[in-house]
């Protein structure tokens, strides 16, 4: 903090600069806009000086990497020790095809797996369910039972890789399948490293793959917390996601606020279920978006880290520093990719990825340039991965920690975003928390309003999207797009039929009956799911039992 006299001197000098230099310059050449704004629509000043961060107390507000409040990073050496995990989200078609893609990615230097499941899997339908028609294998791999999961991880040693699985409503089932594969490989559970997304609240608010109503969904989540705290100590039991909230249209501050409000709801649910905060909180992880506005995004990551640390310490009384660390995965913003002049997306992704790294991410997915058109082809995925490698090995940004810390602009933005997010969280608290706010449609409405505002800015030309509303050109339709073989659906159906003929169906029925009993009780549900999975009960069969006991969520749709 600067002394008051020094601040006064800067203020006076800045006033003089504005009235003399700036006004003269503007008289000659007006600025491009009357009012400048960030990607999220927040006003941007012409110049930031020490005056804008006069209240910043270095030790209190920034501190040191690996120390509270973790503004500058969660590890003491950050990327000087080890780069972030380069983790490309992938999966399509059958388990065999996806297994090939994973082996390709690992051979190219990727350091962690990230499994994309198809929509029927994410919503708890087997491939032969009528709702699954046309969707099998489309946006991810189709998994109907442990048999598919065994193929998916064939020849991939689960004690050597960390695996992230984007699965929410049926997260417990897919986790159990992963555990069962590990058991077959002879890998003990305490060696398993990875993440399940397991974040149902943002599904209601933004992403859409919910199955059950909030209450039993929260119970499934806290059962996973409790089970993993004993059996899978290295596993990230949840990835509380702002990514999809942002993709749905939220601003940077809303992304932080709605994500942390969801996180608060999970912590409260776990406490209510009788867990101790430091038992489960160290395994909570987060997932954010890296959008276009470079500095605002960097500030967003820093603000989120500081705010979460405070919430855990002050609100929940966490003692273990790991409970206060906001560790996060980042993905570049899919919604910024353009179908027009798709090669330009490579540049967008590079800038967004750089923001994620300067913001201190623990792992990163870079989007492929062709994703506004189709699932990515192999060349596009390779360039996306190379982008990360160039940032890591060539740009020099990973050699020192939080290099933008202390920037007047970035610190001012960090403060502003934290404050704005806090205000939202207070509002959500007053409504009774995130679950209530979602049930009332508040969060959905806020996101929609932001999305509509953004669209109107693009259409009025206030916001430029290169190649879309400016610098357009005639182009040839793109070639080499990846097509999922439509035969996948039939192949999965056939496999299901064979599975049901070969397995011990009486054992399956017994396991499902036991699952029904446990689901209706307050016992931890994970062991019963594990037994059912090992008997080769299908995902759909297990979810049907749970649908029966828990009911299904009916959304409130307001536009």
């Amino acid at each position, binding site marked *: 903090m600067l002394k008051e006299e020094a601040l006064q001197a800067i203020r006076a000098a800045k006033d003089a600069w504005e009235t003399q230099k700036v006004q003269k310059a503007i008289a000659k050449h007006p600025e491009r806009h009357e009012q400048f704004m960030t990607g999220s629509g927040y006003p941007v000043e012409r110049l930031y000086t020490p005056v804008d961060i006069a209240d910043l107390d270095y030790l209190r507000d920034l501190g040191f990497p690996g120390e509270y409040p973790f503004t500058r990073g969660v590890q003491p050496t950050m990327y000087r020790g080890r780069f972030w995990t380069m983790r490309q989200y992938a999966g399509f078609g059958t388990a065999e095809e996806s297994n090939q893609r994973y082996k390709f990615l690992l051979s190219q230097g990727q350091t962690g797996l990230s499994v994309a499941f198809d929509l029927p899997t994410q919503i708890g339908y087997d491939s032969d369910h009528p709702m699954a028609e046309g*969707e099998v294998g489309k946006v991810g791999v189709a998994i109907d039972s442990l048999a598919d999961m065994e193929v998916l991880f064939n020849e991939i040693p689960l004690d050597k890789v960390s695996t992230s699985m984007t699965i929410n409503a049926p997260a417990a089932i897919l986790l159990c399948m992963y555990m069962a594969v590990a058991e077959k490989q002879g890998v003990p559970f305490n060696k398993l490293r990875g993440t399940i997304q397991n974040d149902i609240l943002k599904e209601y608010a933004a992403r859409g793959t919910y199955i059950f109503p909030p209450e039993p969904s929260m119970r499934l989540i806290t059962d996973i917390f409790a089970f993993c705290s004993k059996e899978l100590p290295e596993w990230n039991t949840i990835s509380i996601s702002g990514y999809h909230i942002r993709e749905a249209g939220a601003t940077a501050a809303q992304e932080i606020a709605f994500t942390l409000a969801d996180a608060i709801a999970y912590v409260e649910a776990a406490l209510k279920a009788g867990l101790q905060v430091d038992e489960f909180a160290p395994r909570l992880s987060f997932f954010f978006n890296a959008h276009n506005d470079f500095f605002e995004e960097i500030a967003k990551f820093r603000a989120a880290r500081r705010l979460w640390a405070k919430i855990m310490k002050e609100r929940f009384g966490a003692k273990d520093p790991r409970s206060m660390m906001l560790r996060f995965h980042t993905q570049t913003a899919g919604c910024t990719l353009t179908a027009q002049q798709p090669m330009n997306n490579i540049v967008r992704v590079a800038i967004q990825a750089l923001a994620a790294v300067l913001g201190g991410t623990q792992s990163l997915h870079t989007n492929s340039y062709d994703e506004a058109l189709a699932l990515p082809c192999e060349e596009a995925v390779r360039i996306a991965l190379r982008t990360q490698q160039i940032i890591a090995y060539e740009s020099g940004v990973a050699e020192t920690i939080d290099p933008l810390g202390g920037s007047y602009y970035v610190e001012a933005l960090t403060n502003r975003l934290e404050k704005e997010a806090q205000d939202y969280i207070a509002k959500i608290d007053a409504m009774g928390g995130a679950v209530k706010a979602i049930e009332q449609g508040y969060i959905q409405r806020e996101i929609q309003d932001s999305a509509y505002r953004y669209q109107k800015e693009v259409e009025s030309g206030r916001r430029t999207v290169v190649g879309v509303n400016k610098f357009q050109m005639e182009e040839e339709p793109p070639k080499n797009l990846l097509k999922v073989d439509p035969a996948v659906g039939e192949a999965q159906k056939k496999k299901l039929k064979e599975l049901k003929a070969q397995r011990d169906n009486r054992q399956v029925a017994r396991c499902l009956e036991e699952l029904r009993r446990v689901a209706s009780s307050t016992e931890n549900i994970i062991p019963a799911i594990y037994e059912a999975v090992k008997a080769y009960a299908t995902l759909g069969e297990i979810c049907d039992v749970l649908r029966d006991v828990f009911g299904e969520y009916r959304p409130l749709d307001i536009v």
Partner: protein
Amino acid sequence: MMRKIRVLIAKPGLDGHDRGAKVIARALRDAGMEVIYTGIRQTPEQIVAAAVQEDVDVVGLSLLSGAHLHLFPKVVKLLREQVGDKVLVIGGGIIPEEDIPILKEQGVAAIFGPGTPTSVIIDFIKEKVGEKSQGTSA
């Protein structure tokens, strides 16, 4: 008084990406149309039932999962069976260029991909529905 153009915005298939659908619903409403949004995960049967019940002039389908070749034509077919060809069906989402002629052949009037200004969709609807209503009154 002229009847307002009535539009059903629908999400067939399983994907939950409804940002585009909702933005378009609001833009059409701001342009003076009556808009009904179905919510996500609707079967073709549900969409057509809603279209018939709401007596809409236009059905706008949004899909990002890749199941469009399967689901869009099914909606058109069911609509034709129940009310003839008086309802304009349009679509949007992640639809590869090469699939567009296939969808048009099967009765989808237009596909509006990512980056389409909402004004283009509004103009298209006004023109087509205008033509149709003139056709029936003549």
